C-alpha cells in the first residue's frame, strides 16, 4: 500500500461526542469499526476531499446500529431494518449529502434485506457498512441469516440447518457497484477500503466480519478472548484473488475488494428527469 494512514491517538476524539462511552461489550468489533471509520473520514477531511458537515450517518437497530450515535456528524437512529430506506430518502431529497449506513447482518440481510437489494438494484449513492458477527448479538445469540451451517446457537441447539447468505455475492447480483469484505483483523485494509467507499459514487457495500466475544466467541468458536478470535479471523482469511484460483473456500473468510465499477446513480437520473420535465412546462 503506497498511501499513508495517520494513526494519531487524538483523531477519534475530534469526531466523538464529548465524554463518550460506548455500550459495546469489552473487545467488541463495533468499536473498532467506529474508530476505523473516523480515521478514514479524517484522512479525507484533511485532504479536502470530503466535508464532514455534508456527511450523514444512519443506523438501524442492533449493536452496530449504535455506531452513528457516537459521531459528531448528522446522525439518525432509525427503525429496525429501515436504515437503507431512510438513507434512500435523505439522498433523494438532498443529493449533495454523503449518506453512510451502519448496520448488522440482522439489519441489512434479514429484516432489511428487501430494502438492501432494492437500493443496490437502483444503484443509489448510499454506502452500507455491514458489521457481520454471524448471529443476533444484542438479543442473546440467536441464529441469523449469516450463521454458518451446523453452528450451535441459542435457537439452534442441534446445529443450524439453514444455508448462510453471502452478502457480497448478494450485493453483486443485486447491482451494487462497490463491494468489499474484510475482517476486524485487517484494520489498515478496512481504513483504506472505507476511504475508497466514501469517495465512490454509487451503491457501496462493505462487509466487516467482526467478533462478538460474548455470544459468537464463547458459544460458537469456543474462544472468549477477543484477541484469540482476531487471530482466528486472520488465520482463516483468504484473499479474493487466491479464492478465485483455488475454488474451494469452505470455512474460510474471503476478504478483499470484489468490485469497483461506475454506473449512473439513481438520484442523478431522478434529478435529471425532474429538470427535463420542469423545462418542458
Amino acid at each position: 500500500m503506497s498511501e499513508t494512514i495517520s494513526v494519531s491517538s487524538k483523531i477519534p476524539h475530534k469526531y466523538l461526542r464529548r465524554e463518550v462511552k460506548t455500550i459495546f461489550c469489552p473487545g467488541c468489533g463495533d468499536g473498532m469499526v467506529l474508530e476505523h471509520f473516523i480515521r478514514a473520514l479524517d484522512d479525507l477531511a484533511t485532504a479536502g476531499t470530503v466535508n464532514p458537515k455534508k456527511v450523514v450517518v444512519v443506523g438501524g437497530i442492533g449493536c452496530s446500529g449504535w455506531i452513528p450515535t457516537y459521531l459528531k456528524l448528522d446522525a439518525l437512529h432509525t427503525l429496525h431494518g429501515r436504515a437503507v430506506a431512510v438513507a434512500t430518502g435523505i439522498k433523494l431529497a438532498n443529493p449533495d449529502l454523503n449518506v453512510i449506513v451502519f448496520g448488522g447482518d440482522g439489519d441489512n440481510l434479514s429484516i432489511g434485506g428487501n430494502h438492501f437489494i432494492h437500493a443496490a438494484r437502483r444503484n443509489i449513492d448510499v454506502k452500507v457498512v455491514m458489521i457481520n458477527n454471524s448471529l443476533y448479538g444484542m438479543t442473546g445469540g440467536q441464529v441469523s441469516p449469516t450463521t454458518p451451517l451446523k453452528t450451535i446457537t441459542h435457537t439452534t441447539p442441534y446445529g443450524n440447518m439453514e444455508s448462510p447468505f453471502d452478502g457480497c455475492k448478494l450485493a453483486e447480483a443485486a447491482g451494487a457497484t462497490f463491494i468489499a469484505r474484510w475482517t476486524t483483523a485487517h484494520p489498515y485494509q478496512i481504513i483504506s477500503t472505507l476511504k475508497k467507499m466514501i469517495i465512490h459514487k454509487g451503491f457501496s457495500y462493505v462487509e466487516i466480519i467482526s467478533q462478538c466475544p460474548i455470544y459468537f466467541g464463547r458459544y460458537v468458536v469456543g474462544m472468549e478472548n477477543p484477541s484469540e478470535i482476531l487471530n482466528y479471523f486472520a488465520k482463516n482469511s483468504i484473499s479474493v484473488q487466491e479464492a478465485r484460483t483455488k475454488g474451494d473456500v469452505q470455512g474460510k473468510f474471503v476478504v478483499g475488494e470484489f468490485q469497483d465499477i461506475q454506473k449512473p446513480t439513481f438520484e442523478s437520473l431522478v434529478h435529471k428527469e425532474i429538470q427535463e420535465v420542469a423545462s418542458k412546462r
Partner: protein
Amino acid sequence: MQVVKSTPRYRVIIDDFLCKGCKICIDKCPYKVLELSDKVGDYGALVPGAVHEEKCTGCKVCVIFCPDFAIAIEKSEERA
C-alpha cells in the same frame, strides 16, 4: 552486571475511564510493552499498564486495535 534501563522514547497513556479491559492491546503489541496491571478502571475491569515502556517503538498497533479509544502514544519530551 547491572542492567540499565534506557529512557523510554514514547509514553503509553491508558485512559482508565474508557478502558473496558478486553486485553486486545496486550496480545497485539509486537514488543510486549503492555501487561495487565492491578489497577481497576471505570468499568470495573483490570486495565493494562505500560510495564516495559522502554521497549515501545511507537508503531501504534495498540491504538488502531483498541475498540474503546483508550490508548494514546506520545513522544517522550526528554529525548526530543
